[in-house]
């Protein structure tokens, strides 16, 4: 392994690389760009919501004639933006960033592996992801426009929607394939390629979270695959899996056999989409755990309980899907079951969160930029989790269902939750990837602005939801109660644009630090995990000699040790 590596050509090195680090970087940059796109779509929607029917500034004039009227948004375009914002953020932004980028780059390093178990499969899954993403974006410029039936694509609406929906389905199939391949790769890698001495209970929590995530991907996505196949058949072959008999659209009986069930889609979709929620959050939790352990300079409190909760969480997430469907005419028994499972699944999340919180006790906290994001994650994710409580219960859901409260809830989980975790991860591992450390001041600016605006966006949404304002409305002001809450909408919109501005320091920091002269030290955070055991940036093949692990992942401030951190890969005498 240690013999010299011949220089690879540009294509092999950057485009068709099989090196997990390069693939991780590809995933990362692609995902960041997609995140930015998804965010831009949302900023346009926020304009329409804040100032209904007024011409969109800056971009309005450039938009396609079928999207806008004199620069003012048209309802159909709004629905396209809504559907695509959700799809892009979930399937093309956060998952590739959390799993594809961080997973690919960090996991093999943290387990002391030369690469992923199946490097070429790895490359393939990135390419599938890229193709899927491009199809999704391309659908905007098809005659019928992009998918406009929400990211949940409920039939019959999605069945009778314009061609964009077909592209959405094809895109999804690619993204699903990508996730499946990735998941398989991660499972095998983590199970097989752990360094000598790295037992499961010496794995960093981040690796654990990736393992569980991988299982969720592999086992949950097929359900959506099946659903997508059915919907494609409905749209292309004229079947009616999701179409009951006797549908009348636009005053005409639609030409379909009928006999299908619209609810079938919802069951299949949510069977995927609820585990998907945990796919979104678990890697984030993993990163947060790493950062907190490292910056509190002490072991995570309750590492084992956290791992067990993680496994339990993963398992339970397959049993709660129908709590998205309380109001589809569900009976008492069913709803009771799913309310119970929903309450149960909240326990492990509480355990993990409180373990992270309690880890602060007795620590010596370094307020580094990643740590700031990690600390902010705790209460933000806390809000996200807590607001899930009333939604998880059927009765309050009667009022809150499909209001902005729901949007506030899950955005608190993924935006100030996962996205903050992602930022923490970027700041934390940037020195590992580039060999440079990011600028502090810009980092602080980025953090504080983001924190303020994130809450500025999503806190008002919770109140709007309380006021009963429904989501996915092109122009809610037709409703009296929505007019009363319009001020909140304005706050949200302006905060959203503010959030965009507050990313500028990050972007500058990200690219400018890369060009910096002076290199960061090999182990700038004085961390204990394996990724810091090798050169920076790690060579092809990662480790010159396969590392050996002697201790648990977070051996900080070990009594009697001369430094306050005892790396896994260093043998402690005695």
């Amino acid at each position, binding site marked *: 392994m240690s013999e010299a590596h011949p220089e690879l050509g540009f294509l092999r090195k950057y485009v068709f690389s099989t090196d997990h680090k390069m693939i991780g970087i590809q995933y990362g940059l692609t995902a960041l760009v997609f995140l930015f796109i998804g965010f831009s779509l949302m900023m346009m929607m926020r304009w329409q919501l804040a100032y209904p029917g007024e011409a969109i500034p800056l971009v309005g004039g450039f938009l396609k004639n079928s999207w806008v009227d004199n620069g003012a948004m048209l309802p159909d375009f709004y629905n396209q933006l809504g559907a695509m914002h959700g799809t892009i953020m979930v399937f093309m932004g956060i998952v590739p960033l959390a799993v594809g980028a961080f997973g690919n780059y960090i996991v093999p390093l943290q387990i002391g592996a030369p690469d992923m178990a199946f490097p070429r499969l790895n490359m393939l899954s990135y390419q599938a992801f890229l193709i899927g993403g491009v199809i999704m974006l391309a659908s905007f410029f098809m005659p019928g426009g992009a998918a406009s039936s929400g990211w949940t694509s409920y039939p019959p609406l999605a069945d009778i929607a314009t061609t964009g929906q077909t592209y959405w389905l094809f895109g999804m199939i690619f993204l699903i394939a990508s996730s499946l391949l990735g998941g*398989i790769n991660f499972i095998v890698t983590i199970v097989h390629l752990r360094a000598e001495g790295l037992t499961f209970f010496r794995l960093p929590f981040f690796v654990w979270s990736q393992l569980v995530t991988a299982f969720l991907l*592999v086992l949950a996505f097929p359900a959506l695959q099946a659903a997508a196949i059915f919907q494609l058949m409905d749209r292309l072959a004229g079947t009616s899996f999701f179409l009951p008999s006797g549908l009348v659209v636009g005053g005409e009986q639609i030409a379909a056999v009928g006999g299908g069930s619209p609810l079938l889609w919802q069951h*299949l979709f949510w069977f995927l989409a609820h585990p998907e929620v945990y796919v979104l959050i678990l890697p984030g939790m993993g990163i947060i755990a790493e950062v907190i352990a490292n910056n509190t300079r002490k072991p995570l409190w309750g590492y084992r309980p956290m791992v067990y909760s993680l496994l339990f969480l993963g398992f339970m997430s397959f049993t709660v899907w129908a709590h998205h469907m309380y109001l589809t005419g569900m009976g008492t028994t069913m709803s009771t079951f799913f309310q119970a499972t929903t309450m149960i699944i909240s326990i492990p999340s509480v355990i993990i969160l409180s373990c992270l919180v309690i880890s602060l006790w007795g620590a010596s906290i370094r307020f580094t930029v990643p740590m700031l994001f990690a600390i902010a994650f705790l209460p933000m994710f806390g809000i996200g989790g807590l607001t899930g409580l009333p939604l998880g219960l059927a009765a309050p859901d009667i009022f809150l269902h499909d209001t902005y409260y729901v949007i506030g809830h899950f955005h608190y989980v993924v935006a100030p939750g996962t996205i903050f975790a992602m930022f923490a991860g970027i700041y934390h591992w940037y020195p590992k990837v580039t060999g440079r450390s990011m600028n502090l001041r810009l980092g602080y600016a980025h953090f504080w602005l983001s924190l303020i605006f994130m809450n500025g966006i999503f806190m008002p949404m919770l109140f709007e939801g309380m006021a009963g304002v429904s989501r996915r409305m092109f122009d809610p002001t037709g409703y009296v109660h929505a007019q009363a809450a319009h001020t909140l909408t304005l706050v949200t919109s302006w905060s959203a644009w503010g959030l965009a501005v507050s990313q500028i320091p990050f972007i500058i920091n990200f690219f400018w630090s890369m060009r910096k002269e002076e290199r960061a030290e090999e182990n700038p955070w004085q961390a204990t995990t394996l990724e810091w055991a090798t050169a920076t940036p790690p060579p092809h093949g990662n480790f010159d000699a396969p590392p050996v692990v002697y201790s648990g992942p977070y051996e900080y401030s070990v009594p009697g040790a001369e430094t306050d951190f005892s790396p896994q890969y260093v043998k402690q005498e005695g």
Partner: protein
Amino acid sequence: MSEIVIPYQVEPHPMTGVTSGKLGIWVFLASEVMLFGALFSSYVLLRVGTPAEYWPSGVEAGLNVPIGTVNTIVLITSSITMVMSWASLKMNNLRGFKRFMGATIGLGLAFLMIKSFEYSLKFSHGIFPAVGWPEATDPSVFNALYFTLTGLHALHVILGIAVNVWLLFWGISLFKSQPERFAGRVEISGLYWHFVDLVWIFLFPTLYLL
């Protein structure tokens, strides 16, 4: 492929007792189980949701049980030949491997041929995915399910055949250098093939007999 060596590609992992490839295919099959599981549960959900008299049995819907049975036998036989080809490879009998692998591919193609014949038969009777069961006033989605499920299964068969063909004509070059590794690949393809076979063994009664 770069020259870095990734462990457990040939030798089994002490803990799991299998090579990475085999573990991978097992995980993949697990997700395939979830896929077909989802499809079968959809079948159940749709059937339960439809009044019994509107849901034809396979025969009523004009499915030809004898042909289906023949196909089942063909596929099961192909599974056997698959095992044989792998076994003979293990016994360093390359000719045997080629013969049996060829047979497997042949049987796979035969299966597809019979299936396409069955399809054409239905098309000629004007039965398409989008057509409900004519006897029912409120048609069911039986035909749609039949075509979708069997079609998807056929896709899996095609994929399996493709892999086997590759192994037989191109992959075999690996045999000289690393016989063990090649045998491993054949075994993996075999596992997949048996799964596809198994799926059909569930599909056949569900669609034709129930």
